[in-house]
Structure formats: C-alpha cells, structure tokens
C-alpha cells in the first residue's frame, strides 16, 4: 500500500489492526503527530457566549420594541385589523416578491426555511400565506436553492420547471439559456414536457432548444456566489449579457461574432480584470466610456 493510501485509510478509520501498527511507525505518522501538536497554537480564540448574547439581545430588543409600543390600543385595533386583514386575505393572493437589480445580490428564506440566494437582475415570487397548498416558486433569472431536508416544492421558470426534494442546486433561466445544476441530492427537471432526474454534480442545460448534460466539478456553490461567473461553451452573447448584469454597464460589440462559443471565468468583483478575461481569448480590445458604456471590438477594426 502506498503512502497516500495509508493516510487516506487512516483518516477513514479503515486500516486493519496490523496496518495501523505499521503506519504508526512511519515517518508520515510522526509528521502528522507534529502537525497536530503545532496546530493547537492556532486554535480559535475563546468566544464569550454571555457577552455575545447580550449583544444579540440588544439587537433583538430593538426589533421587538417596534411591535409592542402600541400597548392597550392594540387590543382595540386588533378586531378592526382582523376584519380588514380577512378581507384582503380572501380577496386576492398575497404574493411575496423579491427582485434584484444589476450588480445586486440578495438572500431570502422560503416559508419552509429553505434558503435562496438570488443573482443580479432576477426575480422570485411565491405565495407566503398559502404555502401549505401552493408550494410553488416563480423564478426569473438565476437563484441558488438550499432546500430544508424533507421539504418539497416546485420552481417555475418560463423555460421549464424544477421539482425539489431536500437538495442544493442552482437554476438559471435567462434568454435562450436554461440551466439547472445539482450540487446535492436529486432534482427533477421538466423541460419541453420531458422529465429528467438530475443527480448531484451534474448539470442540465438547454441553449436555444438544444439539450445537454454535463458532469460538473465538485464545487459546492455556483460561481456567482463565489464572486465569479463561469461559462462552459456558451455563445459569447451570454457572456456579454452576464457581464452587463454583474457590472451594470452596457456593452456594445463591434465586429465580433457573438454566436461563437466561449469557455472561461470572469471575476465579479474587478471589472478591469473581467474585461481582460473576456477580451483577450478572442483578441478583442475594449474601451470604457464615461456613461457606463463599454465598447468591445475586434482587433481588425
């Protein structure tokens, strides 16, 4: 057994008694012991639970005070509010809606405490009051979902539907591009009346109607949640559109075939670096104008 295998099995706890004894006499084992000993010097500083709780308590109190400062008037108002509330409740659907602008990102929680992160220029809505009966979420744009274990709901986009069962995945629904990436668990994708089950570390993609499946690397979160935008063989037009979303700039393209496929990653937090990333591979030059406009042109011009 080679060194790496010994270490792996030691960590997994799958060495036999005999193998363990052998391993404990190796240089590697001694190195590990020394590392463990030295690591204790980097342990986290102590956390003062009492003091920290006081802090959060003060924040919480400020939130509570807003609700209870009406005192006895509350009881009187309660009946009235209940009547008016009931009228509104029964007369129309209360849709909770969240939207992000260019260069903006946000996070929210669904009624079942599932976590949603929303990328730029996206919109999500769901019926908060009717969640038990209507477990549907409408999505425009791109969102990452980390679903509470045991929970189930549907995500509806203009291109297709994604059915969720306690998993983590990313849904991207932009012009002509519909992509679902499963990070954990299993996800059901309905596209064009066809059902597909998507296991972890795979992605379903439909570009201009063409469907493809891909195994993705074992990242745990989509690129945009790690401040970058990644593309695998997509038309350059998609790259430009995402750039515009991330940086809230308009890009004018001159003399470039925007149908050509592009693979690469640009930073979401450094515009110059991002521009270099998308222009250099295609031999393009760029010019940044004052009014949040960028001109991207081929060298030939």
């Amino acid at each position, binding site marked *: 057994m080679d060194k790496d295998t010994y270490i792996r099995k030691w960590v997994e706890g799958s060495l036999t008694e005999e193998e363990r004894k052998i391993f404990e006499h190796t240089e590697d084992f001694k*190195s590990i012991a020394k590392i*463990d000993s030295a690591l204790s*010097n980097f*342990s*986290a500083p102590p*956390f003062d639970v009492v003091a920290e709780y006081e802090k959060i*308590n003060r924040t919480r109190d400020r939130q509570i005070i807003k609700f209870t400062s009406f005192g006895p008037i509350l009881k009187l108002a309660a009946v009235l509010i209940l009547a008016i509330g009931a009228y509104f409740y029964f007369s129309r659907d209360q849709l909770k809606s969240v939207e992000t602008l260019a260069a903006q990102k946000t996070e929210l929680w669904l009624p079942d405490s599932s976590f949603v992160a929303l990328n730029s220029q996206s919109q999500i809505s769901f019926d908060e009051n009717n969640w038990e009966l209507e477990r549907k979420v409408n999505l425009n744009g791109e969102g990452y979902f980390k679903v509470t274990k045991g929970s189930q709901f549907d995500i509806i986009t203009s291109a297709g539907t994604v059915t969720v069962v306690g998993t983590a995945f990313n849904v991207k629904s932009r012009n002509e591009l519909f992509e679902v990436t499963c990070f954990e668990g299993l996800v059901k994708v309905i596209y064009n009346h066809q059902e597909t089950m998507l296991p972890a570390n795979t992605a379903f993609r439909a570009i201009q109607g063409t469907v493809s499946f891909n195994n993705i690397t074992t990242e745990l979160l989509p690129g945009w949640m790690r*401040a970058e935008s990644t593309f695998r063989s997509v038309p350059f037009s998609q790259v430009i559109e995402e750039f515009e979303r991330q940086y809230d700039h308009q890009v004018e393209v001159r003399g470039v075939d925007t149908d050509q496929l592009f693979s690469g990653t640009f930073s979401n937090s450094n515009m110059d670096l991002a521009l270099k990333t998308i222009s250099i591979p295609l031999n393009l030059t760029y010019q940044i104008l004052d009014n949040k406009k960028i001109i991207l042109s081929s060298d030939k011009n």
Partner: protein
Amino acid sequence: MNVNHELPVDENTCDEHLFSQLFKDHASDLYKFLYYKYGANNNPQDLVQEAFAKLWKNCKKVTRDKARGFLFTVANNQMLNELDKQNTKLKYNLASKPSQITNETPEFLLEEKEYSLRLQRAIEELSEDQRVTFLLNRIEGKKHAEIAEMLGVSKKAVEKRIYTALAQIMEKVGKI
C-alpha cells in the same frame, strides 16, 4: 398535552427563552466554524451576530429542530462582499503554549518558529472548505459525521477534504 416545560419541536423559534437557549447551544460552534473558514480578519464574531439576527428575523419560518441547520446554512452561504473580504489570517494563540523551557538551543527554537510559520501559511493557503473541515477535526476534535452535518456535505466528502488537506500541509511544512 405537554407534561414537561419544553416546547414541542415544531414550535417556531420566535420565543425569547428558546432563542437564548439556541444561542447557548450553537453560537460557539458557529463562531469556530466562521473563524476557521474566514480567519480572524473577517470578523467572525460579527458574522455570528448576523446569523442569529437573521434567525430572529425569520423566526416564524424556522422550527426549533431546524435552527442549527438554518444557522449553518447562513454561515456556509456567506456571500462576503469580495471587495471587503480580507485575506485569511489565523492568529497565533500564545496562551496555548506552555511556559518556555530554557534548556532548548537557539537553533531549535528558531527551527520551531520557522516550522510554525510554514504551518500557518499552509493552513491559510488551503481552500476555505478544506481548511474549516480540517481544523474543526484536528484542533476541535469534531467527528466526521458532526462536521458533515455542519457543512451540509457527506461524511465521505469530509474525509476526502481531511486527507487531501493533510497531504498538502505535509508537503509544505516538510520533514521534521
């Protein structure tokens, strides 16, 4: 009808007594997680405060048994503004070192210091996920299954991160 004073598990967390209990139960682990993942310069204490503030704000949607999962999901999905994000730096905890024995040679002490620096650098150079998994296991003694739950990944994924981190560190700190 509940005989004891405990709230049933499907009560939501909008209760001060329950909230304080949840803080006592989970804040320390959450702090360690955030410290090892992002380092000392990214205000792990503030991130703990933020996570609990979010829990309170969304308390109607979170039942008591889902609270820990909620807090760690917030911690795992921190979208730290990349512009503000500081380099990962772990602090050397002098308090943990026993008082120096004076019969060690200067050369030995120097070697120890250099080893320590190489180790610190090696830890800081690990990916965030590798580092937090590795340190929670090696320093805090958290079991693989425990860490798997905190990170929302499989036990196998945790083990893989530990032995790849270990191999990387062993390479960087060199022979003893």
